[in-house]
């Protein structure tokens, strides 16, 4: 699967609450963050857990401000996310 994002890109995570296994943590859904780095490619666990064919796809380290995730806090959280969980978002300040 082609790599859609580069370090520095702003992304928006999926808001979907799937009825199956996923590795997109609940607290990081529907949140805007910044791609820190690309980690390599791995099959999507959401499909693998259901024994569906899963091509390796890019996984990224994405950094979120705590205030974006929890509405408060001055720290950041980085979460490792498969490309299928992400959509492009507007650059910071233009949202």
């Amino acid at each position, binding site marked *: 699967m082609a790599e859609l994002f580069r370090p520095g890109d702003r992304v928006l995570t999926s808001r979907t609450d*799937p*009825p*199956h*296994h*996923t*590795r*997109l*943590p*609940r*607290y*990081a859904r529907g949140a805007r963050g910044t791609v820190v780095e690309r*980690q*390599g490619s*791995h099959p999507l666990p959401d499909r693998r857990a259901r024994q569906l064919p899963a091509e390796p796809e890019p*996984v990224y*380290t994405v*950094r979120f401000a*705590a205030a974006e*995730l*929890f509405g408060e*806090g*001055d*720290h*950041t*959280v*980085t*979460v*490792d*996310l*498969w490309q299928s969980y992400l959509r492009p978002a507007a650059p910071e300040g233009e949202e």
Partner: protein
Amino acid sequence: MSGDHAGPAGTLAARVRHLEGLLEQRGLVDARELDDALTAFLARAAPANGARLVARAWLDEEFSTRLLADANATLPELGLSMGGGLQEQRLKVVQNTGETHNVIVCTLCSCYPIALLGPSPTWYKSEAYRSRVVRDPRGVLREFGFELDPAVRINVWDSSAESRYLVLPRRPAGTAGLDERALAALVTRNGLIGVAPI
């Protein structure tokens, strides 16, 4: 359903035993082979490995630079690797500085670099730590007795995919004369997870 687990530990253990039995029955796995592999892996997996990495990084700036840029390629310099499981896992070493402090968690289960830190402590797997450290890391550190300078920013690394993380703590003051072995003896498992200073 990311927070869901297979059920109580007893049920999971029973399922694993059942699966192991089937694999042996069908001749896919030899029981002794499995035990030997587990014993060998766990004998090598200890926090002393992570401590050696840190001590070397404190003493050798070029080693530290290589470790932070590509940990997997640098581990063999100390005879270490992340290949103890089924496949080699990517390791990312994150450095504490005067401006930034790093803390490791796996909010979905308990992912952790066992080869370098040994089996994970019970609290690391607890729902309380996993759910709270992403939300209020400063408060959680305080409960560990670690009062972090308010000016230092915190980044929490959630190991939610295929990478594993290790914290490179700051070298403590007053250790200028110490050699690699003496420095390694100062490094604790909690320090390598980021919940304690060294």
